[in-house]
């Protein structure tokens, strides 16, 4: 059986103390991961802190304001000030609340978000903490634990707003989890593995980003991902005008910030998976010609590539928030169940059909763990994805939702009763 072993980079295992006193197994599986985790958590938590600042700055920029600019130069110390403020705030637990669950809920939400970080390939070679063979399933499984934290938090608060927010949030998250999972299936047919690092390597072998094969899948994934993280325009669970603050209405101080960290971390994870599965991860065409693959410089560059792609997607998150109005709740559910799910099913069936046709014509060949695609095969697969899959799905969706009141792809005659209403 082939398994992937973790290994520390050579420069690390040659550090004087480690080399002399430690068993290589302990080094590879305990010390080096600890170093990685420490670095990762530091970077991610700092990033999350600065994402809040970025969000405020971007919103200010979009609305032609200045944004926070008092604390530090250009407001750069604002996150630090916010953190200290949250730490020294009062810690309220409502009297009627279910105390144990109330305390545990935000921890669950945050842990679920942070643990997923372990399997994401942040860069080539040693820049991933663990490359388990069911990476994608692991992430999907662990991140659904976040729902648990939210619904427990809302339930334990024993407040009407919190409970309603939690229910809405849970229903929304489970609804969008389905198209999110289904949208990934199409890409899996090309990368042929669930281990995330191998997905990137397979895309590197094919010299392509999966988004070209799977434009529809990427789109569905992105929309579902935004809804999954409860971000605008799908931020119904915390719609201020209706539900105060949603599931964390009763949370204050540092417990509130745990939920906050969880939300931003799951945004980061959604973006990171989108980058890994659809946008080639750390793979950038031509990078391996400039730098020697496997060298420390190459790994650092790959981390940079990954970070850049992820930040671009995060920017899209913020951009959408300040561009689109909020959905109504029934519209939100309709979008999930009547648009995203049929679209993702159609995407799977069409992709499967196209792949079989390509295989019958000898355009692609399966080589054990990966595909090999001829030049004509690239043209065929990319062409059909854009020319057949997307328009056909569009037509199907238009047909099955022709009577929809809220969304429509074409002008339809108003229903007789609506017409009558208009006349009167």
């Amino acid at each position, binding site marked *: *059986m*082939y*398994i*992937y*072993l973790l290994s520390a980079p050579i420069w690390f295992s040659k550090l004087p103390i480690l080399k002399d006193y430690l068993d290589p197994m302990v080094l590879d599986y305990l010390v080096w*991961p600890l170093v*990685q985790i420490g670095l990762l*958590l530091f970077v991610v938590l700092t990033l999350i802190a600065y994402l809040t600042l970025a969000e405020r700055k971007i919103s200010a920029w979009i609305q032609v304001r200045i944004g926070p600019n008092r604390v530090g130069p250009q407001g750069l110390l604002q996150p630090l000030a916010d953190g200290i403020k949250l*730490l*020294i*705030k*009062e810690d*309220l637990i*409502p*009297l*009627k609340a279910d105390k144990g669950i109330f305390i545990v809920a935000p921890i669950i939400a945050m842990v679920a978000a*942070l*643990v997923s970080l372990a*399997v994401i390939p942040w860069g*080539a070679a040693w820049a991933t903490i*663990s*490359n*388990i*063979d069911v990476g994608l*399933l692991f992430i999907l499984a662990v991140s659904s634990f976040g729902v648990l934290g939210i619904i427990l938090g809302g339930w334990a608060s*024993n*407040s*009407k707003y919190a*409970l309603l927010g939690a229910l809405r949030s*849970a*229903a929304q998250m*489970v*609804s969008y989890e389905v198209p999110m*999972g*289904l949208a990934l*299936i*199409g890409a899996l*047919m090309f990368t*042929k593995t669930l281990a995330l*690092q*191998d997905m990137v390597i397979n895309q590197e072998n094919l010299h392509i980003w999966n988004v070209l094969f799977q434009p529809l899948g990427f789109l569905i994934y992105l929309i579902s991902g935004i809804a999954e993280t409860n971000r605008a325009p799908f931020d119904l669970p915390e719609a201020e005008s209706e539900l105060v603050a949603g599931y964390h*209405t009763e949370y204050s*101080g540092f*417990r509130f910030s745990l939920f906050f960290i969880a939300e931003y971390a799951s945004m980061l994870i959604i973006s990171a998976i989108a980058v890994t599965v659809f946008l080639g991860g750390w793979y950038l065409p031509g990078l391996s010609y400039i730098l020697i*693959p*496997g060298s420390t410089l190459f790994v650092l560059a790959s981390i940079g590539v990954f970070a850049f792609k992820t930040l671009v997607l995060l920017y899209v998150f913020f951009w959408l928030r300040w561009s689109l109005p909020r959905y109504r*709740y*029934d519209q939100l559910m*309709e979008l999930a*169940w009547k648009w995203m799910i*049929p679209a993702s*099913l159609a995407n799977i*069936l069409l992709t*499967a059909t196209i*792949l079989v046709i390509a295989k*019958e014509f000898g355009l*692609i060949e399966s*080589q*054990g*763990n990966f595909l090999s695609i001829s030049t004509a095969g690239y043209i065929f697969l990319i062409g059909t994805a854009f020319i057949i899959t997307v328009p056909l799905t569009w037509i199907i969706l238009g047909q099955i939702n022709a009577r929809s009141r809220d969304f429509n792809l074409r002008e339809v005659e108003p229903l007789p009763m609506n017409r009558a209403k208009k006349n009167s």
Partner: protein
Amino acid sequence: MIFFLQEQIPLPNPPISSAPPVQVNAILTDINPIVNYLPILLLLIIAISFPVVALNISSFLRRTVFDQAKLSAYECGNDPVGDARERYSVRYYIIAMLFLIFDVETVFLFPWAIIYDQLAIFGLIEIFIFIGILIVGYYYAWRKGALEWV
């Protein structure tokens, strides 16, 4: 009968490592693959201890002045009326059930997608039957109004 009625499932070839050794070391060993989860366990422990430690630190820093009004549930400033845990819409239950069905189906699709190019035409027929049955149930749910929120 139709030709596929008595088809033998073509089993996939044994996996061949495609990974260049410089990037991820793929070595033939008899170490249990579960060791790859050890770093995840480490991260889990650290991730759990982070909020616990932070909450404890903050307990030294924060003020604690409670009163009755502050500790009651927020209801726009009024005194809370009754208990929050009342009956809520049946829609949520329906969504939960639909989610269960679809999520299980999704999980079944993952292994299929991984070896799809080797299954080829057989896999295509199978998945059309599989998703066909799913779509029948989906259509039925839609027709019966399970997907309507209002």
